[in-house]
């Protein structure tokens, strides 16, 4: 009994000491250390940002991660392949379906199975719906971080329609758990396609609304234009991906550049880039990304092929020995799974590459010399999800 409480006490002391070490690094004679988080309204989750300030100017700023680490990579080693799906749903919880796809694709690659065309198209449609649900919330949330409350409510209002469509297919609003190795659990329900096209039209209206309310607003532009500039080479050297990289002028989109067997190459859409690399361009690129995603969904709904939605796979899935890496362009950026199989029911090792972890790592570089309010706007425009950082 005493031993356990001693161990608890020791763990507590250790945690305190670890905390103290971070504080000590920043405690100096001049300036003030501001601890934003782990509980802070701007970090939507438990990201901790330790900033050393001179007045309101940031001298140095360091993100401290790991407050929500759930050990997914280790947990996956004791799950079977079908079970992994449920777990990885929780990584980027706003666009959950997009988390399942790269893992399923990697497993299929190892097994040598290919999903039938209809399943691939439905996967792509749901993938893009997940992207819209995720990024439309970003569009409102970023405005909220700069004090514009109304846009956030508009975002929640219109995301609801997308979630309804996802729910109608998968039964889950946030965690669909719908992908299966070799195909999908189910087909679209009756009448779903017409509803979805109506929702896409509504989302395009939402984008116009956001363009009026936020992008065109002089105060928003004053707060974001020329703030937090990340040049293209810096963005690449920090491993940024997704809209953050495209906003720095690097024309790179995995959907177009690395075909993984989904239906993106079947439709006509544009990869938008922006030369500036500031907070505004990151916002603008994401706004265009939602518009393009609605176009993709519309086109895929029109040309949906018929046929089965499940390939022939054994009832008990055993993946042959081998290693596979599949990455897709998720709402937050490049997300990839490196799966190592030893021919078992479950993966031997899994390495998950999530976008937010790398996107956040640029913070110390980009926040040198900015003001405290700009730290918030830069954080918001880099767009991270805590589950995606800490896994």
């Amino acid at each position: 009994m005493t031993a356990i409480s001693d161990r608890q006490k020791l763990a507590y002391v250790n945690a305190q000491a670890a905390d103290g070490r971070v504080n000590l690094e920043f405690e100096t004679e001049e300036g003030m250390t501001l601890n934003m988080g782990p509980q802070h309204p701007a970090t939507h989750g438990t990201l901790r940002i330790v900033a050393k300030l001179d007045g309101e100017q940031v001298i140095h700023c360091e993100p401290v991660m790991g407050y929500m680490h759930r050990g997914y990579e280790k947990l996956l080693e004791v799950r079977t392949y079908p079970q992994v799906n449920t777990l990885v749903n929780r990584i980027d919880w706003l666009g959950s379906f997009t988390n399942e796809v790269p893992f399923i694709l990697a497993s299929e690659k190892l097994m040598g199975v290919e999903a039938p065309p209809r399943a691939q198209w439905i996967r792509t449609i749901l993938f893009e719906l997940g992207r819209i649900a995720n990024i439309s919330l970003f569009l409102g949330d970023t405005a909220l971080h700069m004090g514009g409350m109304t846009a956030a409510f508009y975002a929640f209002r219109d995301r609801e329609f997308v979630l309804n469509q996802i729910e109608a297919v998968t039964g889950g609003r946030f965690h669909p758990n719908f992908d299966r190795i070799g195909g999908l659990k189910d087909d679209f329900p009756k009448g779903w396609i017409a509803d979805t096209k109506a929702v896409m039209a509504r989302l395009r209206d939402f984008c116009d609304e956001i363009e009026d309310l936020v992008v065109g607003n002089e105060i928003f532009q004053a707060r974001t234009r020329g703030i937090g500039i990340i040049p293209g080479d810096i963005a690449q050297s920090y491993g940024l991906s997704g809209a953050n990289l495209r906003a720095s002028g690097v024309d790179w989109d995995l959907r177009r550049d690395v075909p993984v067997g989904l239906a993106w190459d079947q439709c006509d859409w544009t990869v938008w880039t922006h030369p500036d690399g500031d907070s505004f361009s990151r916002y603008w690129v994401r706004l265009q990304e939602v518009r393009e995603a609605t176009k993709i969904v519309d086109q895929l709904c029109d040309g949906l092929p018929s046929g089965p939605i499940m390939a022939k796979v054994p009832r008990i899935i055993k993946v042959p020995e081998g290693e596979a890496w599949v990455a897709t362009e998720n709402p937050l950026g490049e997300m990839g799974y490196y799966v190592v199989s030893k021919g078992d029911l479950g993966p031997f090792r899994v390495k998950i590459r999530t976008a937010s972890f790398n996107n956040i790592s640029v913070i110390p570089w980009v926040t040198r010399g900015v003001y405290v309010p700009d730290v918030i706007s830069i954080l918001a425009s880099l767009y991270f999800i805590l589950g995606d950082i800490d896994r």
Partner: protein
Amino acid sequence: MILGLHLAYWQTSVIRSLGVLVAVLLPAGTFVYIFLFKMVSFMQSRLGPMEAGPYGSMQLLAEVGKFIQKEDIVPDNADRRLFKLAPYLVVATVLLVYLVVPFGPKMRFVNFDGGIFYALAVSSISALGVLIAGWASANKYSLMGGLRAAGQLIAYELPMVLAVVGVVIQAGTMNLSGIVAAQANGKMFGFGGLGNPYFITQFVGMVIFLIAVQAELTQTPFDMPIAESELVTGYITEYSGMRFLLFFIAEFAAVGSFAAVAATLFMGGWAVPGIKFDSGVMNVLGPIVLMAKMTLIAGVIFFVRFTYPRFREDQLQKFAWTILIPVALANILVTTVLKVAF
């Protein structure tokens, strides 16, 4: 004295004391319900409170009851006496502003010749309360909020005063009752049917005044001292329960007091065109008219608050010193020239 009744000194004192409380709390409560609960909800495509009373009209009482029940927490490192004093100081300034605002020909607390001067001077005391709150909380967010509030006050007091100077020149008096009379009896370029409401002839002044009021009241787009996404809630971060409620009341009562001053300066105060200026009926009608005009101005303040994002502190200072103050000075110049010419 009022309505032909003769009251003893103590009776007028009691009525005056109650009157100040009503003057402060009634607009504050009305604005919270109409704008914070309902208007913002409709703007954001939601309903707002609907359960307590018809259309949630009793929600305010429920909220007050909630805050009264809560524990009053004082942080360990806080400067206890100052920490407890600050909210009262902020509320008191609002009460002081109402003293000089006229509600009717005879409905007023004090008839003071330097009225507008006094109102502007007294309203700045609240920044002292905010600074005390920020310092005494022993919290870095609170301190930054308090300092931002102080910086904002210095930047925005000047355009506000300069905007008022135009009105004072045109009315020829600093007495708020005199300004109401000047607007009710005045003529616009020889046309006297509407009097001379200064929101037409002093339009530039009114815009500058309202922008400065927005900053003075720390409403978005100038709400950096609170800035809930950056500084948690700025100087009120450490406050809870009753003291938080006092800050909250003070915020909305201050909206009311500045709306009252703005309505008096620019919209003719309690007077309505068409009804004889100093007839006795205005003593009853006047407060209602003034309240209606205050609600109109508060509506503008809150509409802006819920539409725009927030400036950065240095952008706000730049805006005040490079745009508002030169425009306000030009406004004074033009007003002076026109005053001499007509």
